[in-house]
């Protein structure tokens, strides 16, 4: 019975993993194919060629772009973690007038279609003189309703007694926030961190808008630079670039996962 269950579970887990991973593996395989092979719809490359990777790196300054993306994503991640956790803390542990209204207001910002804000934001950033700078690429994303919401949900599961105990010890709110709430929310913070990093990493239109030179441009622009419209796209090269671009994020995910696991292992709050 137990063995059967374990067996079934593994079978299911493996099936699901295959389904989830297939597209990524597929992209990986394509990245080793020649242009003709891709267009003829092969799944397995006849021979693995790294020419696509070489081409990808030659075509655009991928390494610089990667570095820029890394810096920008890291800054945004940091900013979002700080700003969101502060706000979420206020929403859960500080009881003040108008809190709920403010919270709903924050949530409401999630509802604003991003398309509607892009042009005015571009003008704002331009007025601030932040074009072509990391500031313009990062600061507008520091406040994230989604992050606030995520952390709020997690903070709410922290037993109230811990807050009470800290109150009684005369610990300041900030210290409670810093020493108790943040460590206890490691998993959520890591999750949010991964999320912010990845979304920033994957941004395209905004970096394109606010940058005018390769010095601060990010890797998604590079990706787009490899695709052509009227002329056949070289899919092998594009896929190679895709792989190069998602590799750091996947890596980050793995590392983050590991930490998550550790955090999770240490387990429940209670």
């Amino acid at each position, binding site marked *: 019975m137990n063995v059967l269950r374990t067996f079934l579970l593994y079978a299911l887990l493996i099936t699901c993993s295959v389904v989830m991973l297939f597209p990524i593996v597929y992209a990986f395989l394509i990245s080793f194919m020649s242009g003709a092979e891709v267009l003829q719809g092969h799944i397995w490359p006849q021979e693995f060629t790294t020419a696509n990777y070489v081409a990808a790196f030659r075509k655009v300054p991928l390494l610089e772009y990667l570095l820029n993306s890394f810096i920008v994503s890291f800054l945004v991640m940091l900013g979002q973690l700080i700003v969101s956790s502060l706000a979420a803390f206020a929403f859960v542990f500080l009881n003040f007038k108008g809190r709920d209204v403010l919270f709903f207001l924050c949530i409401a910002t999630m509802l604003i279609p991003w*398309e509607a804000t892009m042009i005015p934001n571009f003008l704002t950033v331009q007025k601030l003189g932040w074009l072509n700078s990391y500031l313009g690429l990062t600061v507008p994303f520091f406040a994230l309703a989604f992050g606030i919401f995520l952390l709020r949900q997690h903070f*709410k599961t922290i037993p109230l007694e811990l807050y009470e105990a800290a109150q009684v010890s*005369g610990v300041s709110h900030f210290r409670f926030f810093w020493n108790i709430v943040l460590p206890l929310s490691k998993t959520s913070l890591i999750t949010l961190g991964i999320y912010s990093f990845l979304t920033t990493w994957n941004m395209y239109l905004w970096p394109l808008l606010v940058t005018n030179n390769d010095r601060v441009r990010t890797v998604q622009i590079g990706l787009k630079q490899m695709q052509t419209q009227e002329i056949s796209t070289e899919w092998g090269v594009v896929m190679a670039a895709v792989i190069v671009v998602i590799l750091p994020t996947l890596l980050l995910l793995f590392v983050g996962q590991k930490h998550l696991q550790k955090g999770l292992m240490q387990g429940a709050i209670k």
Partner: protein
Amino acid sequence: MNTPLPVQPPASVQIRRKRTMRTTLEGITYLLPSLILFSIFLFYPMLRTMYLSVYLTDYQGNPVQFVGIENFVYLLKDVNFLQSVKATLLFVCYTVPTSVFLALCLALMANEKLKGIGLFRTCFSSTMGMSVAASSVIWMFMYNPSIGVINKVLSLFGISDVQWLLDPKIALVSVAISTIWMNTGFTFLILLGGLQNIDPSLYESARIAGVSYLYQLRKVTLPLLSPTLFFVTTVSLIHSFQTFGQIDILTKGGPMDATNVIVYSIYKDAFINYNFGSASAQAVILFFAILVVTFLQFKFGERKVHYQ
């Protein structure tokens, strides 16, 4: 924090007022960064959008002529817009429940204590590492009727060419499927976190009681997971309303506007057709639509949520 007590007890009313003032101030301090950034980068543009929605704009997006609610009136009569509304609603219905459900199943499986479970967790969350653009390109490949894998596999089963992205009847479903795949990783990760946060002694107690897996799921796991579930549904809902990238790459709103969801229609109107007025009007409508849905979700959903 550790201020000495005042010698003279001040009038209690005054204390209280001071205190509420102080707590409010403190709360605001924590919120200040968010509030400032929100105001500059979200509220201000949104207000501007609302303002534009009652204007006819020039190509630069400057208002040239006040038209009142004409933009709205036209939209509500426009079959194209109604089609967008329909597509959006359908898309939300296809994606949200499915991706939350699938992610929940995966999270439940991955929550078991098994050897090598970490590997599976990583696999399941891997789609989170994929950008929408990259994933869409891959899916576009897979959907390709002539060279795509999906049709190749299906042809093994004798199912002939399905035009995944070209048939108006299934294009939306196809886009939804790829979207679900893209969303699962993240939803999974969040749900897994929620599951792991449940006090293990409650499971121990249930194990001793000898209840079946499903019963435990229904009576213990899900209620205790409800804050997380609530969160992911709300967020998926909002995100789903705002899906853009995959539509742009996979179908460009076609065929026959079948996948022309409102956000994509806004995008086209604003950035390709330069009808900022109409785009703004759609944005405003979308905003209020999501607002209503989210409000309902909070009002009725959060009631069932059990915190702590």
